[in-house]
């Protein structure tokens, strides 16, 4: 997987000159505007078919910087496209990442549909690091050793693109569809759980909509964090102690509707619940 990724990275560099800073800033503002106004937009690759993965991350960085300038704080990074099904669908070998901000954390028991465009929910395991992790070459075992706690979470993803339709660079530029997260109330040390066999059911209004085990996330949720550390290392970045990392959906993403009562049950980690208001 690695040699191919490096090869792809070389290709990004070739494309870099074709898109100047001004366009990247414009596209960043465009997506930020869509998010702030809860308005769906057509995907940016329609107008910029040449957009590369690296340029897409530049746009994402632009959005992240704007949010930080607004005074928002990063809770931690999140991984996307971590399931085989989604990677196959997008025809990629590596997952993607984005950032979750403090204003995305749902603290009550309900969300309002009007705060989103077309939100979907998926069940995940979040990792809280006790130590910094600096790639490259990080393994899942190293991640587990550096992890203080794992927490059950429901992530709300909300692509800013029409009908949730996008290509890989589109979704990366859109901060990996980040929009919300609800954490459970149970925390556990990682050695207390067999995380790849941790079973999860996701129900809406009492009916199971999807289910799976931790292995659905690139074989093991800790592997997802290791891949993230190694991806960030290519940019000279690291994972920091205290960050809460969303590792990727164990279940598929289920579209939310007004009146939905959402409940995810995690083996050994309790349940996470919320309702969807207007």
């Amino acid at each position, binding site marked *: 997987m690695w040699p191919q990724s490096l090869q792809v990275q070389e290709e990004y560099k070739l494309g870099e000159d074709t898109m100047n800073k001004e366009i990247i800033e414009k596209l960043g503002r465009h997506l930020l505007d869509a998010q702030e106004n809860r308005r769906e937009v057509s995907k940016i690759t329609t107008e910029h078919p040449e957009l590369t993965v690296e340029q897409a991350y530049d746009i994402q960085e632009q959005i992240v910087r704007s949010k930080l300038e607004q005074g928002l704080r990063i809770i931690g990074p999140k991984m996307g496209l971590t399931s*085989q099904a989604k990677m196959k669908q997008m025809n990629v070998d590596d997952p993607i990442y984005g950032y979750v901000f403090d204003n995305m954390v749902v603290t009550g028991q309900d969300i309002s549909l009007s705060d989103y465009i077309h939100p979907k929910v998926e069940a995940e395991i979040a990792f809280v690091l006790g130590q910094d992790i600096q790639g490259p070459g990080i393994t899942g075992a190293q991640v587990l050793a550096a992890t203080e706690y794992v927490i059950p979470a429901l992530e709300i993803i909300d692509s800013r693109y029409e009908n949730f339709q996008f290509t890989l660079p589109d979704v990366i530029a859109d901060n990996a569809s980040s929009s919300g997260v609800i954490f459970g109330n149970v925390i556990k040390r990682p050695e207390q759980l*067999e995380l*790849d*066999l*941790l*079973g*999860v*059911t996701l129900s809406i209004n009492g009916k*199971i909509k999807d*289910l*799976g*085990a*931790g*292995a*659905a996330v690139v*074989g093991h949720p800790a592997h997802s964090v290791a891949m993230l550390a190694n991806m960030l290392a290519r940019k000279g970045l690291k994972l920091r102690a205290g960050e809460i990392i969303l590792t990727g959906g*164990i279940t598929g993403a289920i579209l939310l509707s007004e009146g939905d009562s959402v409940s995810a*049950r*995690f*083996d*050994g980690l309790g349940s996470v619940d919320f309702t969807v208001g207007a």
Partner: protein
Amino acid sequence: MSDLETKFAEHLEQAVATGRGVAPITEMKPDITIQEAYGIQLVTIGNKVTAGSRIVGKKIGLTSLAMQQLLKVDQPDYGHLLDDMVVENGGVISFSSVLQPRVEAEIAFVLKKELIGPHVTAAEVLLATDYVLPALEIVDSRIADWKIKLQDTVADNASSGLYVLGGKPVKPDAVDLTLAGMAFYKNGELMNTGVGAAALGNPAACVAWLANKLFEFGIGLKAGEVILSGALSAAVNAVPGDHFRARIAHLGEVSVSFQE
């Protein structure tokens, strides 16, 4: 034993004798009922018992919403497990002993008390269970190309083939089966994941359904019987050389290989 049962039992036995799938029964007799299909199954099992096989348990099929939707049914079905269907954990299956095998991961129950319907509950199933084990079921169809409708698979012993049990028995009070996660691998590659709840919301509820269904035929589940409670994930096709492995949380793992 009716003429219809004898005729279609022979039809299905033809597939095993020749090693080639046969035409769907529902094509030969479109108005065949589910009750008649179970009658055919009981005749084929009776013939095997007469030939020296022993019934060691039951299997429950069509427990997932996906399978029920595929066959347009709203309830599971069941088949019989015979002593010659067992493969040792880690064993090798010769392709000459199967027709068109598919593999799926399940939770197996071994009973310590009998269960007699028609009002058995999931809680009673757990109380009557000696232990649970991870299992691989090798489903197979005597109907060519798996072109089955509900009546076809019911007549064909619920598409039973072979089964493998993991080596570590676990008491039913040691695990919440509904949330026990499962990871299923073919040749080392993750094929799918699931949890116990994939089987009708609760594997024990599947066994309760079976006990209650069997009551219609005047049959009870006996102490010592092995019950395969239903797939936790989609079945995966097998070809010679393939290796399958399932891991189930708290229950350990089970594996099997195929050869020419």
